[in-house]
């Protein structure tokens, strides 16, 4: 019978906290997808050995504080403007890896012009797009991505297309632009999904160094606090409802 000290050896280590995740206590709610996505990004940067070459740009929204959690240089942008910061950063420092991390309010509402034109210009950056169909930080208001019928604090009777318009599938829109190289939609609700999402993020970073255009990784995510559900119920609701509108998988890959 092995004792604990027999088992705790480096060769038996199958999982650990990524070295690039800081020890700061995350402010995200239990069950929120942000923490998992942060971890995947930290792992990718660590695996690729590009910590000293990576600059992250955080948005306005819950992930405004992303800079507290991943141990790289960060810029914090005004609401929706992260792709403009990333454009200049990458063009002025072309040997660096530059990524933005944006929610659906930031990217698909106030920042539509910035993301569309960064894509259209084919900026060699990576965009991580967290789509949870709601404004998390300001208390659960309707986002462009909110599903029809979905209740939020500004659609208390459910989103009505006559009143509130339709959910915006911005990822499909961006795939139509010539400047994008890799467009994919992923999730992190299961270990298998998280593994796929990590591969997608890595591909995005690799593509950004090839000078072939912008890589865009949407992560369909939960906001159990905003959705007013338990973490497990939120995952189930996401699979049944969000995935129907926002199906997972690669949408565009210019190298395939």
């Amino acid at each position: 019978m092995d004792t604990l000290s027999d088992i705790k050896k480096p060769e038996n280590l199958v999982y650990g906290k990524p070295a690039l995740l800081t020890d700061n206590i995350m402010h995200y709610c239990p069950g929120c997808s942000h923490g998992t996505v942060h971890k995947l990004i930290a792992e990718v940067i660590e695996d690729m050995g590009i910590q000293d070459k990576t600059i992250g740009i955080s948005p306005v929204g819950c992930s405004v504080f992303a800079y507290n959690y991943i141990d790289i240089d960060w810029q914090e942008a005004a609401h929706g403007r992260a792709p403009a910061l990333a454009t200049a950063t990458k063009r002025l420092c072309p040997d660096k890896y530059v990524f933005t991390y944006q929610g659906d309010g930031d990217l698909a509402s106030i920042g539509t012009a910035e993301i569309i034109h960064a894509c259209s210009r084919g900026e060699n950056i990576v965009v991580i797009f967290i789509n949870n169909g709601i404004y998390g930080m300001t208390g659960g208001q309707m986002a462009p991505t909110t599903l029809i019928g979905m209740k939020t604090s500004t659609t208390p009777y459910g989103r009505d297309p006559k009143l509130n318009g339709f959910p915006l599938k911005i990822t499909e829109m961006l795939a139509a632009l010539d400047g994008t190289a890799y467009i994919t939609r992923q999730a992190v609700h299961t270990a298998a999904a998280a593994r796929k999402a990590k591969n997608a993020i890595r591909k995005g970073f690799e593509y950004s160094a090839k000078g072939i255009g912008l890589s865009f990784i949407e992560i369909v995510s939960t906001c159990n606090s905003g959705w007013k559900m338990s973490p497990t119920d939120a995952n189930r609701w996401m699979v049944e409802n969000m995935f129907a509108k926002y199906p997972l998988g690669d949408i565009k890959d210019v190298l395939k």
Partner: protein
Amino acid sequence: MTEKILMKGNEAIAISAIRNGVDGYFGYPITPQSEVMETLMKEKPWETTGMVVLQAESELSSINMVYGGACCGKKVMTSSSSPGISLMSEGISYLAGAELPCVIVDVMRGGPGLGTIQPSQSDYSQCVKGGGHGDYHCIVIAPASPQDMYDFVDWGFELAFKYRNPVIILADGIIGQLMEKVELHPSKPRRTDAEILAAAPWATVGKPAGKERNIITSLSLDAGTQEAFNRKLLAKFREIEANEVKYAGYLTEDAEYLLVAFGCASRICEAAVDMLREEGIMAGLLRPITLYPFPEKEISRLASRVRSMMSIELNLGQMVEDVRLAVNGKCPVGFYGRQGGNVFTPEEIMEEFKKFNNLK
């Protein structure tokens, strides 16, 4: 001998940027300053100095590109005109809040709203008093010639990096479009990566393992932290006010009456002063070159010696408020202005000056 070339004020901005080692320009077309980006695109500096020039999709985007570039410790700039500066105001507030150096050129036109495309000085309050939200100041410098446009780019970056603060070159449609001989000083190379790190150790250019990461943000959720930051900014502004005031006096020392004017208006006033002196009226002119910091000590000093002051501006009366504050009741303060792109003549100023001072 230094080279002298006939060029527009707007062209001087572009040529100066290339020759003074600017790393990036991000802009959006708007009259009357589009020649800045047009000249840069024609000159193709990316093939010579490596300078990045990019046409953004909006002024919102161009000022945020400036923010991103400034985060990397680069010398970055943009130019626009009044309505474009309104759109940039959000970004300018963030730049001030994140203490980022940059140069912004405002070639003013008439407003409010879409206004006119003719020259005006009606963004004085917007640029000098803030424009964006929150407690901050931009350093504002006012050129009066294409030569100033050329020289102020480099001076602007010097101030911007010295104080980690945005600098606005507040020009107008006349100075932007006016063609004059411009002396091109010897050129300055772009800074190397090592020089950037030395000048801007806070720059976000990738952190090696073991080094503390650099974070550029204007966010502090805690009231105490925010207040401490506001007070730090105040200390910086006091230092700027103590060290950087610049003005030009014209016949001020024996003047009995003073005109105060900046930018193109100061040149017209100079002619008006000459004409008044020919009639035996002892007029003088003070031209504030820095609008923030404002030359309030000099105005206060002169206020105790002259019979009156008159602020002459191409707007409804904006700088005159600062003149009045500086004068603080020591002498009467008058105002004359034209709007909508109309420009006063020296004769017109002379007439208004006489009216205000009960002179014949």
